[in-house]
């Protein structure tokens, strides 16, 4: 079967990237385990209870936190509620479409949510107003503004940064506002497998030729709290543990340098 021009170009690009990665290099000059430049700007939206704008290379996301009163779930009457949503805005890329969340957007929101929820970052037990009747609901809304790869890390770091700077608007119920109760600080690092090389924080060009993706969230103790493999290719056990080790190391750095923890 003959190939289209698009396919040929794609094949060449893939080959090229696989080759330089195999040699230990990357298209933008980074080391294999090196993140792109990461800038986090908190309190971008003062009207929200918390917010953070994240630039990870040319990827840009804005995370806003709203904290509102609501009813607890019937099976967890003594617990606040956490809910996470990602909007892959058509503004951010010609390939994103308007309409209900795509399966990519759903996976993105769920992976970010899992890192925060499973690390027990937020102490949901402290968000009860009246047991079984009223609790604080924490809404994490992630707006993708500019897409150049690795949304999982940009969104995760943005969500964590925004939560660390969020307040509970207790003045609404006659008390004093207080900071969101934080127990842990998870950081998620994502890897892409290009040919047989694994790189950290893939940019868009790298993502396009990757066969597999792996996200590893760790906490400040170096424990693994969430993972997600993606794409239609496989990874080896060795690749998994190498990624885990890098995630612990890079996570520690980001926690300190960017999140101030």
């Amino acid at each position: 079967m003959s190939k289209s021009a698009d396919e040929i170009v794609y094949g060449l690009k893939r080959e090229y990237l696989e080759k330089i990665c195999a040699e230990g290099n990357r298209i933008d000059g980074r080391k294999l385990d090196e993140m792109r430049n990461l800038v986090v700007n908190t309190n971008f939206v003062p009207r929200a209870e918390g917010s953070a704008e994240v630039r990870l290379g040319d990827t840009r996301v804005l995370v806003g936190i709203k904290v509102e009163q609501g009813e607890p779930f019937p099976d967890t009457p003594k617990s606040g509620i956490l809910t996470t949503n990602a909007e892959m805005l058509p503004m951010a890329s010609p390939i994103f479409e308007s309409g209900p969340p795509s399966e990519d957007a759903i996976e993105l929101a769920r992976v970010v949510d899992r890192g925060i929820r499973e690390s027990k970052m937020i102490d949901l037990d402290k968000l009860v107003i009246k047991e079984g009747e009223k609790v604080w609901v924490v809404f994490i809304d992630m707006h993708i503004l500019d897409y150049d790869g690795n949304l999982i890390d940009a969104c995760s770091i943005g969500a964590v940064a925004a939560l660390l700077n969020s307040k509970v608007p207790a003045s609404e119920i006659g008390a004093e506002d207080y900071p969101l109760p934080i127990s842990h600080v998870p950081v998620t690092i994502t890897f892409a497998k290009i040919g047989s090389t694994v790189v950290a924080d893939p940019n868009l060009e790298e993502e396009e030729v990757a066969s597999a993706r792996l996200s590893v969230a760790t906490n400040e103790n170096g424990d693994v709290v969430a993972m997600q493999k993606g794409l239609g290719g496989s990874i080896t056990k060795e690749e998994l543990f190498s990624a885990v080790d890098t995630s612990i190391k890079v996570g520690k750095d980001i926690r300190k340098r960017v999140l101030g923890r």
Partner: protein
Amino acid sequence: MGGTQSDIKLMNEEGLRIDGRKFNELRPIRIEVGVLNRADGSAYIEWGGNKVLVAVYGPREAFPKHTQNPSRAIINARYNMAAFSVDERKRPGPDRRAVEISKVIGEALECAVFTEQFPRTSIDVYIEVLQADAGTRIAGLTAASVALVDAGIPMKDMVVGCAAGKIDGKVVLDLNKEEDNYGQADLPMAIIPRTQEIVLLQMDGNLTREELEEAVEMSKKAATYISDLQKEALMAKYKSQEPEKEGERDE
């Protein structure tokens, strides 16, 4: 326009408004151009407490095909509020208000863009309200014009939005959130400065014919000033790019 709480004073004895502005004074406006990498054109505007980001894609083949117009480009404006942009979290996705605002913004831009030059295409204008403080449609439209220029789309002139309204029985310029909530009228408008054509006009509240004339005039005057801000923002971008271009040549 709530207008029922007549006990809320929005203007003091000296004629100053709750944020200290005079009746015909705009809130601070700041425009930045070319702020996004992926989009063909983009702009960011801060207008009082409003923070609005605009991206333009196109002209590109309109999709799905049946939306194509054989004699001109369609302008597809999408006004969207971030869930966290307002006091009470907004559910993601377009509500009826957003659909209407998208429609009138798109129609206003259509008055200025030379759409006949790009048959069968769409020009997509994505307006994201990141923080809302009354007047978001006007801020978004003003930034959208700049983003269209940044995308290289040919236009008669940049559309400029501005609103006037009525508080405590007086016609004033550019309502903020409290004034919008408790005032008596709001009149968002947009014009093409070069021809003075009105391309967007909505109004709600209560204005006598005379107040209406006063409000329209006040917005028209402000539009000239905002138009200059648009141009300065574009110039600032091109200036800032020059050294970069030099640098590129060196490599």
